[in-house]
């Protein structure tokens, strides 16, 4: 069917205008080149980005390889569920200590050296602030868009792909790893049934029904956008910013109308049965994670999403999950993490479980989907991360990041790269954007941490 294009609306605050308004340095706006195919591999297949966040750090002895170069025959305990994709794995290590070479410098800059529970806003943005930071306010917010948002925006503006962004969660806390703009987080969808319906329902509509729905929504969104513009006129500066966020969302929805009902590659929606599970019940958590991994995999394979974040768990330092299905009915994850080396046994089992239940599940599904001479996984970058170095330490340096998938051959995988010194996560994020095709980006987040890690990770 033919999708209906929206006309220009009266919106005054485009996303790019919003980004400028909200402080994204002009030097870091992705260059909007039209000469190259956006987000596509050299063979023309789309590149995808999927990030996965888990809380409470990792246990270094069970996580890092002891040397750089080719991966050992037996991976570190936590990462062993990824053994089938060892050749597609890229690990990072520090030369002088058992830890990650990636620091979250912007958290240190706001005085939160041990604020590991609050790094989610920094992990994918490299730019944070703490409003009222001189008072005892733990709130940390991002000041620039996260890389998933940047990639989705780039695809929307330069490749006509308006539905790239997808943010999901299982037990998120008050924060998010995905941010639309300064102070505006992207709320993850935590209900797998709704997520499924949003992504895969509606295909049963006739062309006429779909056209009528698109026309109706366009009329309403035009009206809402116009009313928001007028409403914002006399508001104070902070309140106006809130309305600008709302307007940017309305504009994004308008642009997505163009792709509604357009044909998508043949794909098989995942099963999300049984229906009606209560995900507050801890024993349903494994199913919850599997549902999300399977839906994300299907969405990526079907072309329904290309920039995805998955916040599997965050606890803000309070009560957390238990893991009775791996014989850890108590204490909760946060309490175990706090025991540090005294209980690396249980903590590593938990960490490994996340790699098994989510990362390996995702890899399995993506690697089973052929794409040219390779698979969807080959054209994807999966970035797995935690919010702190280690569970008892809460340190925002030595943040564990793991890469799976080469992004269409961008990364040289199947190895560990040793770094002689610590580097800011901004540089890793810049390289991730390069991997998905945004090669003109010179930095992500705080401009003082510009630069990339391309040479280390691609050669």
């Amino acid at each position: 069917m033919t999708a209906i294009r929206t006309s220009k609306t009266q919106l005054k605050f485009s996303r790019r205008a919003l980004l400028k308004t909200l402080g994204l340095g002009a030097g870091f706006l992705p260059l909007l080149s039209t000469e190259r195919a956006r987000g596509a591999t050299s063979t023309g297949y789309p590149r995808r980005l999927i990030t996965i966040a888990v809380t409470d750090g990792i246990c270094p002895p069970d996580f890092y390889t002891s040397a750089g170069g080719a991966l050992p025959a037996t991976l570190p305990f936590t990462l062993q569920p990824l053994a089938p994709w060892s050749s597609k794995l890229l690990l990072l290590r520090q030369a002088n200590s058992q830890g990650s070479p990636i620091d979250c410098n912007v958290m240190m800059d706001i005085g939160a050296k041990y604020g590991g529970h609050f790094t989610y806003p920094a992990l994918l943005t490299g730019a944070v602030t703490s409003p009222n930071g001189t008072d005892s306010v733990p709130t940390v917010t991002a000041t620039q868009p996260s890389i998933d948002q940047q990639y989705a925006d780039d695809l929307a503006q330069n490749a006509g792909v308006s539905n790239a962004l997808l943010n999901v969660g299982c037990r998120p806390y008050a924060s998010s790893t995905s941010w639309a703009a300064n102070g505006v987080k992207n709320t993850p969808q935590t209900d797998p049934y709704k997520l499924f319906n949003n992504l895969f329902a509606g295909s049963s509509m006739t062309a006429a029904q779909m056209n009528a729905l698109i026309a109706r929504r366009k009329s309403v969104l035009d009206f809402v956008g116009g009313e928001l513009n007028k409403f914002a006129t006399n508001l104070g500066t902070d309140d106006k910013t809130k309305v600008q966020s709302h307007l940017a969302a309305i504009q994004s929805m308008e642009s997505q109308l163009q792709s509604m009902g357009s044909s998508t590659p043949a794909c098989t929606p995942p099963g999300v049965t049984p229906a009606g599970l209560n995900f507050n019940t801890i024993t349903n958590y494994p199913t919850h994670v599997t549902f999300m991994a399977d839906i994300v995999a299907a969405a990526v394979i079907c072309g329904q999403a290309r920039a995805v974040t998955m916040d599997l768990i965050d606890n803000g330092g309070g009560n957390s999950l238990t893991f009775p299905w791996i014989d850890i009915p108590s204490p909760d994850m946060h309490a175990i993490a706090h025991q540090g080396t005294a209980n690396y046994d249980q903590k590593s089992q938990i960490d490994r479980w996340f790699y098994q239940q989510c990362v390996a599940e995702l890899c399995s599904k993506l690697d089973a989907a052929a794409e040219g001479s390779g698979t969807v996984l080959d054209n994807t970058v999966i970035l797995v991360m935690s919010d702190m170095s280690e569970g008892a330490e809460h340190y925002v340096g030595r943040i564990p990041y793991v890469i799976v998938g080469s992004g269409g051959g961008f990364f040289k995988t199947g190895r560990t790269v040793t770094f002689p010194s610590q580097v800011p996560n901004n540089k890793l994020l810049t390289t991730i954007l390069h991997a998905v095709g945004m090669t003109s980006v010179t930095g992500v987040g705080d401009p003082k941490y510009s630069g990339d890690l391309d040479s280390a990770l691609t050669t």
Partner: protein
Amino acid sequence: MPGPVIAAAHKRRVFGAAWLGALALAGCTGQIAGGPGGGGGAAGDSKAGPMPLRRLTAREYLNTVRDLLGDTTLHPGDVPNESDDLSNNAFPFRQPGVVGSFEAANLQSAAESLAKNAAGKLSSLLPCTPSGSAAESDCANQFIASFGGKAYRRPLGATETADLTALYQTARTTLSLDFNGAIDLLIEAMLQAPGFVYHWEMDPGPAVKDGGAVQLGNYQIANRLSYFLWGTMPDPALFAAAAAGQLTTADGLQAQIQRMLADPKAADMAADFFDDWLDVNVLASRPKDPTLYPMWNQDLAAAMETEFRSFGSAALTGSGSFADLLTGTSTSVNQALAAVYGVAGVTGTTPKPATLDPGQRSGLLTLAGFLTVTGATDGSSPVRRGHAIYTRLLCDVLPDPPNNVPPPQPPTPGLTTRQRFEQHDQNACTGACHSAMDPIGFGFEHYDGLGVYRTTDQDLPVDASGQIPLDGKMQTFSDALALTRLLAASPQVQTCFARQWMRYALDRWDGDADLASVQAAAAALQTSGDLRDLVAAVAASRSFRYRAPAPGEVLP
């Protein structure tokens, strides 16, 4: 009237929230003006705190469409919702965030669903029945004024009316909808418009200034009253009072406050306050060790939260007694919850009136809901329980822990919970803050992780004695029963309680500009001991009726 418990705001930077088993900084306690972030400017420079723009909360949205459309089909997850930030020193209540893509999409799908449902009962929403096509435009105009005034909760401006009229015409022409279809589209659009989504129910006409402050207009006060006391839109009587200009007069305002407090909807508000204040609203997501607590499941969690909410609302709608709230034993429980309390003779899933053993229970803080949400997965938690009392009833703040604080030992045979935490407190690194919290939390050692009463812990006798800094001096107590009596009689706790209600009503931290309003509300409670007088004083306070203009705002 006791002296205020307000001191200069702390100026420090702390970030972690891992207070569990890990708080430790010397000199770590203190009371602050308002709380983290502050709410108002320095005293005297604005004479009123700010009124940041905010959207309807999920609860407010659902209640509003219930009253506007008679629709109760949606759930909190269907509309923009709030997450409860349980970080150390975070705002005590859920706060609505910014409308981003996820929230805007939810607003769209919710509006589409509500409009679809409304299509079947448009005759009850329309003020007219057009006799022919010529009368349809006129009827649409009447609908825009009448329904729009309710949906936006104030009279529509001329531009808004014109925009809605234009949308009606678009519906009839471009979209080829019939009259009913166009009306339905108007409903769908209005439910996504800022007039419905945001609390900014400005009155027509110029702003009324009072020095540096702005007096809220009649419709703004009507909405503030309605969403504070009822959690929903104004009813016809409140709209009428606003239209008559009665809400900017002391008598008119007081008449509405008293009428609204007597309405059953006020009970729901009180339940929501207590549920949110002590975080019992997150009870259902708390895991418990099934080997220790095999009875823990979603049904029991729901029963606990239902009881907790009922207990809180009954305190407001029943005796109104603050003392009863903190020391009463009259409640209602179903069979599963009766087993937790050891109450005999209750069967079925429906709550039945019950009196708890006054030798074991004393008020809200000894209910299973509070004790479970502040319990650990594998036992009691003096830290969490002490922290809740410290921050929510004393309005004190604690800094977050430094790096690498060791946790208390896990449950150990031959060592009571108290002994484990006392060992932990002897650690120089942890002692300073835990010495403030744990001796309060020890008072609840008679209750395990689900709030079941116990006399032994690890086969050793429970020692529930402790101490708490109240009203400038250290008070000792033998157990939770004695502790709750101390709390109920403390001017510091009463003033903190007034402050928490002010925060709940204003949806922001209180600041220096709110000091007089907080003191007036506390005085009302201390004079009569009646919660209703406290709530009425908050609603009548200057902080409730005035605001500071926002930086950059253009006042009409």
